[in-house]
Structure formats: C-alpha cells, structure tokens
C-alpha cells in the first residue's frame, strides 16, 4: 500500500477548547460566572479565595472547584468555612482541563450558584494553555516569588484578565519593585488589571472585590 499524505492543520488543544466553550455555554444558561485562579504553589490562592468568598458569600451563591495533584487539604479548608468545594485530583497531572471541569459542573446544582472559583493546580508553566470555560482568568504572583516571573512565564500573564500581587505585607523584606510592576504586566498585556493585595492584612482587597463585582454585574454579556 502506498503512503498517503493527509493535511491536518488542527490545533492539538482544539478538542479541549471546544469543551471549554460548551462549559461556558452551560454556565451562561444558568447565569453563573466562573473565575479561573492560577499561580505557582504557595502564592496564596486558597487564602485569597477564602477572603474573597468570606466577603461575597452574603450576596452571592459561591462554589469552589479545587484542583490538586493529590489530597484534599485545600477543599477541607473551604468546607470548614461552609463553602461548597469540589476536589479534582489530577493524579500527577500539572493542570486542569475542560473535560475535568465539566465532570464537576455536571454534579453541581447550578441554579443557586452565581460564582464559581476554580483553584487551578499550582503551576505557572502550562495552566493558562488549557481553556476551562471560565469567564475570567486571574493570575496571582506573590512578592517572595520575585518580580521577574512575567519574563520567565510570560504566557500566563499575557492571558490574564487580572493579576494579583499577593503578600504585599512582606514587601519591605524583598526586592520586589511593586511600583514598576503594573507597567511590566501592562507592557505584555495592556488590558490586564493589576491589584497588589495582602490576604493577611486585607490591604488592596477592596479593588479586587470591586473588579469581581463588576464582572458579576456584567453576567451574561
């Protein structure tokens, strides 16, 4: 049998992107906004989401989808605060993908939910390459990680709708140039909003909450 050349020209992650669109369509049907929170391990995703849920839970129905390589330590922190949290263990996988998120969405009663946070697997390398069907992508970078991370992992920061600089309470002990940082982010991604925050002291969180509420008000648009 002779060889035959097939022209493919198809993106490897195309099937994931299609599933992500279906996820978004499902959420839109129920008027749910989903926020994908990404960072390296230990940047403060759980602490920031907990602070945020604590502030917004009186007004909105909120659920958290928690992605981890293994264990359910973080999901336990949410349920301890009476927040609906569903754990996804990726069994070694370094990111969540759209089919994993869909499986969880299919188990949730979306009716009473207004807002879903996805706490992605701690990883600045590839999480942003996998569209999950979220409406907003948020990247957290903590002060101790250093202000050179956008240069090392630019794709993450290019995709973000908002970048939170976390742990600003420790700025005096590190060389993180907080004043210059928004310029670095906006050079790569002019539409990203940058919020320096501290989940510990609460500093800067009002701006982040306001941005989230704007996004919730824009639901369905």
């Amino acid at each position: 049998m002779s060889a035959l050349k097939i022209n493919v020209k198809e993106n490897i992650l195309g099937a994931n992107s299609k599933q992500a669109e279906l996820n978004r369509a499902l959420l839109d049907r129920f008027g749910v906004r989903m926020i994908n929170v990404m960072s390296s391990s230990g940047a403060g995703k759980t602490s920031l989401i907990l602070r945020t849920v604590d502030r917004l839970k009186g007004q909105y129905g909120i659920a958290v989808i928690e992605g981890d390589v293994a264990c359910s330590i973080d999901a336990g922190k949410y349920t301890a605060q009476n927040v609906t949290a569903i754990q996804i263990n990726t069994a070694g996988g370094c990111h969540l993908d759209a089919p994993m998120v869909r499986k969880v969405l299919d188990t949730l009663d979306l009716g009473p939910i207004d807002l879903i946070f996805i706490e992605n697997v701690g990883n600045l390398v590839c999480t942003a390459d996998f569209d999950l069907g979220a409406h907003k992508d948020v990247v957290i970078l903590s002060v101790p990680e250093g202000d050179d991370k956008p240069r090392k992992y630019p794709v993450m920061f290019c995709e973000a709708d908002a970048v939170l600089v976390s742990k600003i309470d420790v700025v005096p002990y590190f060389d993180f140039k907080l004043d210059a940082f928004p310029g670095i982010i906006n050079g790569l991604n002019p539409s990203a909003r940058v919020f320096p925050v501290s989940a510990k002291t609460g500093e800067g969180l009002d701006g982040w909450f306001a941005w989230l509420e704007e996004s919730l008000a824009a639901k369905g648009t």
Partner: protein
Amino acid sequence: MHEQSIVEALLTLALENAGKANARRIVSINLVVGDYTGVVEDAVNLYFGFLSKNTLAAGAKINYTHVPGQLRCRDCDILFPLPPRPVYRCPKCKGGRVEIVGGRELYIDDMEVE
C-alpha cells in the same frame, strides 16, 4: 508533565484523521511546536511510544518543526525574535510594550499514512 495530556490529544486527533482516510497505519506525524508551549520532544516521544501501543499510530515517527518566540513592539510595530535571555523590551525604542506574536503554535501540520 503536561506532555501526557498533550500526547493524548495529539493521538486522538491523529487517529481521527487516519480513520477518516481509512488508513491501515500512521507512518509519521509532522508536529509544529512553538517555543512558548514548553513542550519537550523527549517527553512527547516517551508518552507517544507508550500511549500509541495497539493503535494505528504504533511505531509512527513524530517530526518536529519548532517555531521560535516572536515579539512585536506595540509602539514601533517592529517584529523581533525573543532574545536567548528573555527580555521583553523593544530593541529600537527600548520600551516594554511588547506583544507575543509567535511561538505559541501547537498543531499537527500533516501526517503520512498507509
């Protein structure tokens, strides 16, 4: 680590296309990989060898075309390659308003089947 799910998706796509062509086996796959994707050849080959067992793609060779990082200055509108030590600064105006325009590709260009 992300290569595992990338290879799963690559294999699904390759097998779909081979099925449509009523192929008996896949000889080779020409894969285009941008430098920003962080996809490592050795890891792809390792997972591919493992995951393609007992499929039409078993034994297929993957040929890689790498696309280097390409940047554009939003102010001068000039294109320039990502320097070896990544600096997101325009070589002409020295400004930091720089957009990534190339290097994020990850697709099967074509493949050879029998």
